[in-house]
C-alpha cells in the first residue's frame, strides 16, 4: 500500500487496533483518534464499568469500538483480549500497550513497597512480554505494529518515581529489541513518550502542587498535551502506513519538554 494521501483520507481504514488501558486518559485519547481515522478499536479495560461507557459513547459517535475486560497483570486476560479482538474483527493490525499500575507519590528507593514493585513489573514489563507473545502471530499476518508507552522519566531518571522510571526505561529498550527481532516478520515496534493531562497527571498535580508549573517551565510549547488531540494523532501515525519505515524509535510528544534524545 502506498502512503500517498489525499486530503481527508483516513489513515487506519480497515485496520484493527487493541488498546490496553483504553477506558480513560491516554489510552482513550489514542483509541478515539485511531477510531476517528477508521480503525475498529477494542478497548482492553480492567474495569468494564468505565470501559463500556467509553465504548458506548464512541459507538454513538459512529465509531467501531468495543470493550473487553482485561487485567494486563494476567497473561490469560491478555491472550483472551487478543483472541477476542481477532474473533470479532478477523485480524489485529496494532496493539498499543498503555496500561500501567498507578504510580505512587514521591518515594525513596529504600522505601519502595514490594507490592508497588510487583504491580509495576506486572503491568509494564510482564504485560508487554505476554501481550507481545499473544499478539505476534496476528501482527505478523497483518504486517502490523506495536506501540509501547514510555516516558522522559525512563530516559533521564526520576528523583520521585524510581520504579516508574525503571520500567519505562526497560519498555523503551524492549521496543528496540522487539523491533530488531520482528523486523523480518514485517512488524514495527515503537514508543511514545507523552506528557498529557490525564487523570493520572491530575492526581500527580494533587500530590505535588508545583509539578504543573515546573512542567510548563520546561515545555517550549508552553502547555501540557491533550491525550486526544496531541497524543492521539501520533499513535495514528505510528500505526499507519505513513510510518512504515519507522521502527525501534521513541517519539516524544511533550511540547519539547524533553530534548535529550
Amino acid at each position: 500500500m502506498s502512503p500517498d494521501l489525499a486530503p481527508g483520507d483516513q489513515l487506519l481504514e480497515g485496520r484493527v487496533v487493541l488498546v490496553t488501558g483504553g477506558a480513560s486518559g491516554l489510552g482513550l485519547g489514542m483509541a478515539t483518534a485511531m477510531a476517528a481515522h477508521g480503525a475498529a478499536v477494542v478497548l482492553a479495560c480492567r474495569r468494564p464499568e468505565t470501559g463500556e461507557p467509553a465504548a458506548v459513547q464512541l459507538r454513538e459517535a459512529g465509531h467501531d469500538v468495543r470493550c473487553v475486560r482485561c487485567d494486563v497483570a494476567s497473561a490469560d486476560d491478555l491472550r483472551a483480549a487478543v483472541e477476542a479482538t481477532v474473533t470479532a474483527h478477523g485480524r489485529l493490525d496494532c496493539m498499543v500497550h498503555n496500561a500501567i499500575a498507578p504510580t505512587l507519590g514521591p518515594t525513596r528507593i529504600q522505601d519502595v513497597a514490594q507490592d508497588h514493585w510487583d504491580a509495576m513489573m506486572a503491568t509494564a514489563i510482564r504485560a508487554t512480554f505476554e501481550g507481545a507473545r499473544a499478539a505476534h502471530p496476528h501482527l505478523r499476518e497483518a504486517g502490523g505494529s506495536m506501540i509501547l508507552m514510555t516516558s522522559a522519566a525512563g530516559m533521564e531518571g526520576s528523583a520521585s518515581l524510581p520504579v516508574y522510571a525503571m520500567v519505562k526505561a526497560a519498555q523503551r529498550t524492549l521496543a528496540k529489541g522487539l523491533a530488531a527481532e520482528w523486523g523480518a516478520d514485517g512488524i514495527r515496534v515503537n514508543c511514545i513518550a507523552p506528557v498529557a493531562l490525564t487523570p493520572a497527571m491530575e492526581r500527580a498535580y494533587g500530590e505535588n502542587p508545583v509539578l504543573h508549573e515546573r512542567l510548563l517551565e520546561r515545555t517550549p510549547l508552553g502547555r501540557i498535551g491533550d491525550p486526544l488531540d496531541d497524543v492521539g494523532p501520533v499513535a495514528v501515525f505510528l500505526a499507519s502506513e505513513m510510518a512504515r519505515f519507522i521502527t525501534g524509535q521513541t517519539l516524544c510528544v511533550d511540547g519539547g519538554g524533553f530534548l535529550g534524545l
Partner: protein
Amino acid sequence: MADGTRTLLVGDGPLADGLHDGLVHRGHVVAQVVPVGADGGTDIDAGIGAGVSLIGPPDLVVHVPQVPAGPVALVDQTTQQWVEACEAPMAEAFAVARACRPHLSDGARLVWVLPTVAMGGAAGYVGSAAASEGIRALAKSAARQWGPDGLTTAVLAVAPELAFPPDTGAGARTSAATTLTGPALGGPGDAFGDIAPLLDLLADPAARFMTGATLVADGGVWMAP
C-alpha cells in the same frame, strides 16, 4: 589512584571475577557478594551486610548483574525465562541499591556494569537488554535522590562480549549488529586491564562531580550520543 579503597562487588562470572582481580591488583580492598541464583549465592541484604562487616563501610559498590544464556527469541521464551532474563536482574539491582544505601556515606559511589545493549536493544536478548536499560534509569534516579547526601552513581557500559556468557558467541554477534566497522580500538577489551581501571577512576574523589552518567567502555563501538 585509590589505594585502600573499600569496594563491595556484587556479581558472579567471568566479568565480575575479572573486575575483582583488577581492583585488587590496583590496591582495592574487595569483598565479593555472589547473589542468589549463582552457585553458592546469598541474598542481597545478607550478602551486603556480610561484606560491610568484612571491609567496613564501602567507598565503592559495584554491581554486575547476570546475563542469561541465549539468545532466545521473545516469542519462544517461557514466562520463567522472561522473569530470569528481565525482571530478576532489575529486582536484584534495586535490592543492591536499597541494601547498600544505609552503609554509604558522603563521597561513596554505586556503579552498575552493564552491556551496551541497554542503549540499543538486542535481538535474542530482548529481556536482558531491557533490564539493563531499566537499571540505567535506576542509576539516574538514585543519583538524583542521593546527590544531596554526597552520594554518586554511574553506569559503566561494556562490550556485550564481556557481559554475555562467553561460550555462546552472542556478544560478538550483538556487537556486530550495532556497528558497520567493528570496535575502533580493535576488540572488546578485558575486565582486568581495561574495565577495572575505570572503576578505580570512578572511585577517585577527583570524579566526584560526575553522577548518574554512563561511561561507555567498549573499545569504540557504541558512540551514540
